[in-house]
């Protein structure tokens, strides 16, 4: 294999890998009939982060005998007269609080404060001995009603201190009390009737379980794990926390023209030639004019084969694969020289997909038989061939489980692969790997990796970086 072929294979297998990723994440979620474009679909990256959330109380691992969980599994009653401190009726949620996010929150409504009002809300670890109040043992945290104190890891309570705006932190019949976790700040927070009472540092790493406790006759509470609207405005709290974080971030300074340069290099990388021309023209006319020449000189390298890349992208986006082949044979014969190369597979597969799209099924079958046959011995493409040929089985292939190959994003992927391979034919390119990603993409990958690593070192607490969430933020509705 010569150097050219080596670069070809490296780049095309990178894009085939991306295709496989789409296949794995998107075949699971066929789109609903008659709806939406790609952007409104549930986001696969979000799905990676999907975690189990508490929905009801755990009747098995809770201290039965001292408390009675109602049939709805959301209410708890203490029917007996308590004898001593170990008779606490502690009831935990059916699973730990999800941690790959910014906040977790749940609420408890005190239906009846009973004889003494010794009610508590808090969080425990799975190692907790379930007959004590949350907060009374190591690695547990609780907020108690009768004294309004915070307990963390021992039987001695402390006041929430000056942080509490209302002063009176005790709670009783008719009050709604909330317990929450702020993973970014690494702290628990408690609320009373929709107002934050105080926060406490979360010095335990790993999963914690929402818990409530009752301890005197007649005490009765109901919990809300989010099925009903919360009394506390958790959305506003989340926005506030995000704004605080954003303020710290905005304080950081970056070179004024950093974004401008990044957009420019993005347009160059993908061969969006027309946009680039207009962008440069407009940049010259701004007040003050933006210098088009960056500090370390203009990198004309990035203008390499611009108009060819633009033309080919347009052909692929229009689904004209035969014409794409023709142009490639004319301009870059070395790329399509080997008819069994990965890049040729990608193009042939796209041709097949385009035939299905326009309903030329017979032609697609014939084409598939001859073309896919060639790749048959190369079992590495089996899964992708299967995704393509499965289209034939459906009356409405775009709504089938493999409908993702009919989306614009699949054409885009093929266009990006061709674009990268052409970039790698530039004799000045030493390492074909440099052609795989735009600078913007490299920065976004670094950003995502930093967030994930930080979370990993934080015991798995906190949210990942989601470009999709940032893109959707600030939109109305």
């Amino acid at each position, binding site marked *: 294999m010569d150097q050219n072929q080596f670069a070809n294979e490296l780049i095309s297998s990178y894009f085939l890998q991306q295709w496989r990723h789409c296949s794995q994440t998107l075949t699971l979620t066929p789109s609903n009939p008659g709806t939406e474009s790609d952007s409104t679909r549930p986001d696969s990256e979000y799905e990676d982060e999907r975690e189990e959330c508490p929905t009801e109380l755990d009747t098995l691992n809770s201290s039965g005998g001292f408390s009675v969980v109602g049939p709805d599994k959301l209410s708890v009653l203490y029917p007996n007269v308590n004898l001593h401190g170990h008779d606490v009726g502690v009831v935990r949620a059916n699973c730990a609080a999800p941690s790959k996010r910014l906040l977790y929150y749940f609420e408890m409504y005190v239906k009846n404060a009973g004889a003494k009002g010794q009610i508590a809300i808090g969080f425990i670890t799975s190692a907790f001995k379930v007959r004590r109040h949350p907060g009374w043992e190591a690695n547990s945290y609780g907020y108690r009603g009768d004294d309004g104190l915070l307990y963390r890891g021992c039987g001695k309570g402390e006041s929430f201190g000056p942080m509490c705006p209302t002063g009176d932190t005790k709670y009783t019949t008719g009050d709604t009390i909330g317990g929450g976790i702020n993973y970014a700040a690494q702290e628990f927070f408690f609320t009373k009737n929709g107002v934050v009472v105080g926060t406490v540092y979360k010095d335990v790493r790993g999963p914690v379980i929402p818990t409530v406790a009752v301890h005197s006759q007649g005490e009765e509470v109901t919990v809300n794990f989010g099925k009903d609207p919360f009394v506390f405005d958790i959305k506003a709290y989340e926005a506030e926390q995000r704004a605080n974080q954003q303020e710290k971030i905005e304080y950081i300074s970056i070179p004024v023209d950093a*974004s401008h340069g990044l957009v420019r290099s*993005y347009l160059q990388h993908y061969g*969006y030639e027309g946009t680039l021309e207009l962008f440069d023209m407009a940049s010259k006319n701004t007040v003050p004019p933006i210098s088009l020449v960056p500090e370390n000189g203009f990198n004309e390298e990035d203008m390499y084969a611009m108009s060819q890349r633009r033309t080919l992208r347009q052909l692929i986006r229009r689904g004209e694969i035969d014409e794409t082949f023709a142009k490639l044979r004319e301009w870059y014969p070395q790329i399509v020289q080997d008819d069994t190369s990965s890049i040729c597979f990608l193009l042939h597969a796209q041709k097949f997909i385009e035939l299905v799209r326009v309903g030329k099924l017979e032609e697609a079958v014939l084409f598939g038989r001859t073309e896919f046959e060639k790749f048959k011995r190369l079992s590495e493409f089996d899964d992708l061939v299967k995704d393509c040929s499965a289209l034939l089985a459906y009356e409405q292939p775009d709504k089938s489980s493999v409908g993702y190959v009919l989306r614009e994003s699949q054409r885009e992927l093929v266009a990006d692969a061709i674009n990268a391979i052409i970039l790698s034919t530039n004799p000045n390119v030493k390492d074909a790997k440099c052609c795989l990603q735009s600078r*913007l993409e490299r920065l976004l990958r670094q950003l995502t990796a930093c967030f*994930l690593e930080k979370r990993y*070192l934080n015991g798995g607490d906190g949210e990942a970086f989601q470009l*999709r969430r*940032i893109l959707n933020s*600030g939109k109305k509705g």
Partner: protein
Amino acid sequence: MSLFWTVIRHLAEIEAMATSKKVITREEWEKRLNDVKVRKEDMNKLVMNFLVTEGYVEAAEKFRLESGTEPDIDLATITDRMAVKKAVQCGNMEDAIEKVNDLNPEILDTNPQLFFHLQQQRLIELIRNGKIEEALEFAQEELAPRGEENQSFLDELERTVALLAFEDVTNCPVGELLDISQRLKTASEVNAAILTSQSHEKDPKLPSLLKMLIWAQNQLDEKAAYPRINNLSTGALEDPTV
């Protein structure tokens, strides 16, 4: 466990944490970077958001065609917004105010500070052009009444009128008001107000993301040594310093 041993163990833990920062080699880190999924579609949206917010209307239109990315705002409104911005940048304040009101009269009605700043800029332009009498008349009739409502407006008005007291305005203490930067400040304020009135964020998302990258790297620095990107304009990974 006795308190003594608890304390000893705790101290040992602190020491271990201080000395052993996790080291991630370039090879390991590149593997992680490789596992990250970035969607092309999302990057296109990010670029479109930049073009739209910064007012590159022709480029945005072309980008829509070349990349198939739909802008999150009606492109026609960008043209109007840029016309206002341009008018302020060129010092045509009457024109600018008229254009804002054509776009949406509520913008200035609900934003007295912006309206004051536009009027102040108009006063500055009159002074710059040597129309002293007109400037004085305008200050007394239009700006002074607004100053009565708001102390900070009054201070600003006094500062601006002070320009008249100096023969060589470029070297006087309030000379900065005549600088091009004052126009740009006013222009970006009115730009932001128009975007807000269109339920659009006033800043593009890209610069915030770049800041976030630096922030995230700084945060991770506390716990690990790993390849960083220090130069945003090359995006090159630099080996960890241990």
